[in-house]
């Protein structure tokens, strides 16, 4: 019942420090090896298109810790988060409506499958014509791709609400908003979070693609510009920045998820323990 540590408690201070040191080593080891391999490869090959990690790091600091941060990084991140939020609200909202109505689902589902099958990047040229080269167009591209996993997972989650809980809510007269938030949304939250996680990584990809196609600012735009101007270390530093951005967002998402799904992990752990 209580969450007791299974590890034997060895109360020596030296052991603690040693273990912490080992843990840090575990985390840092592989990245260090990869950077070293890259470094050696770039020095020995002397390839113009493969600058050393040192060069990239120096360029990174110089390039992105400047006004570029406000001109390119922040607008990109804002578009990314804006598009993701919009996809989240639309996906979860529509998902709940469709999940609750079998009849509506029967009508809409084949069409959804078709739209889902369209690779979102091909919508960029179309949306450029329809919406113009604007922030709205980039948001539309991000939403058009990120919404699907969110929508489909929400539908599945809403359909799988425990029937005994539905009866319980009926018996105790729980309906309306409380029914929606306490029963339906919380029941579906594991699936909704899984959908949002997929949606987030799709949103990052589409943010970059939409900026590569049609933009005058942003990370995708900058990377293309550097590539065209043969500013190779700059181009690499942009790629590294995107990698770090994705990593950071996944980390933040993990923190939120752990809070929201605390009960779910508890239930699963309890089920395994029995």
């Amino acid at each position, binding site marked *: *019942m209580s969450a007791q540590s299974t590890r034997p408690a060895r109360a020596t201070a030296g052991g603690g420090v040693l273990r912490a040191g080992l843990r840090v080593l575990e985390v840092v080891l592989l990245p260090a090896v990869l950077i070293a391999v890259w470094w050696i490869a770039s020095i020995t090959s002397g390839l113009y298109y493969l600058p050393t990690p040192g060069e990239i790091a120096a360029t990174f600091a110089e390039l992105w810790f400047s006004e570029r941060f406000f001109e390119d990084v922040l607008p990109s991140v804002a578009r990314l988060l804006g598009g993701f939020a919009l996809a989240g609200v639309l996906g979860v909202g529509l998902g709940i409506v469709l999940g609750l109505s079998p009849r509506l689902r029967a009508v809409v589902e084949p069409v959804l499958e078709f739209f889902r099958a369209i690779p979102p990047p091909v919508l960029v040229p179309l949306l450029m014509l329809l919406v113009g080269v604007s922030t709205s167009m980039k948001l539309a591209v991000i939403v058009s791709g990120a919404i699907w996993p969110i929508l489909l997972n929400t539908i599945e989650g809403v359909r799988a609400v*425990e029937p*005994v*809980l539905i*009866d*319980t809510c*009926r*018996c*105790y*007269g*729980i*309906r309306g908003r*409380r029914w929606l938030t*306490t*029963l339906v949304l*919380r029941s579906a*939250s594991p699936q909704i979070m899984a959908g949002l996680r997929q949606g987030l990584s799709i949103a990052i990809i589409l943010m970059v693609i939409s900026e590569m196609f049609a933009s005058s600012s942003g990370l995708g735009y900058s990377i293309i510009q550097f590539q065209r101007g043969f500013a190779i270390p700059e181009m690499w530093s942009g790629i590294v920045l995107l990698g770090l951005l994705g990593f950071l967002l996944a980390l933040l998402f993990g923190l939120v998820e752990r809070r929201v799904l605390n*009960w*779910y992990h*508890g*239930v699963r752990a*309890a089920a395994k323990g029995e």
Partner: protein
Amino acid sequence: MLDVSGLKKIYPGQHGSVEALRDLTFTLGDGELACLVGPSGCGKTTLLKCVAGLMQPTSGTVTLAGTRVAGPPPDMAVVFQEYGRSLFPWLSVRDNVELPLKEKRLAPARRRELSDEALEAVGLTKFAGAYPWQLSGGMQQRVAIARAIAYEPRVLLMDEPFAAVDAQTRADLEDLIRVLWKRFNMTVLFVTHDIDEAVYLGQRVLVMSSSPTVIQDDVTVDLPEERDQIGTRAEHRFAELRSHIYAEIRNAARPQAAATAD
């Protein structure tokens, strides 16, 4: 208090319809504790769902305190057999108990008072902050019972609530039900497949026939008010009642006998 009259339920199906309940009529007086036993598959859960307003009967009526039941009535609480699945795993024990009270629009202080009392009554005061999945099966069922009591129902329905707990826990919960029934002045309808449990708990035992179901017998349990797991079960009268109902149910299992039983 609770009137069930001519209740009939037919499930339509592709391979012919199934008659789950044929004709059920019985009345529970105010503050009565009645147990309903019957062979497995005789439609106990169907009956309970009809009484709870969760299911529409094909014909017949359920009347609670003079009002016909068309949906779940506001002064009735239900404890389900699947206790683990009837609790909200994302809410703490206290929030599970207080959720229906929020819907009743009670003030926070009053909600707290009711949930404190209910949790105290089932012996879970110390676990108010825990989550259902941190508790054992018997404790989870106590949470479901506390939630029902805090709702201040006039009628409490229980659908084989102890079918899935171990024998010792079961005995404890049976005694708990007797205590709560007296303390909170509720009318209790307790559905079970366990004849011993029905005789031990009830003032009355309603015996259901096998499907298609009718009420086959209505046995008054003339045991002393104070029941005791060891003493009561050892009484000669307890054994008599038990054997009588057992024979009825054995008869009920034979369709021919069921048709001529009344």
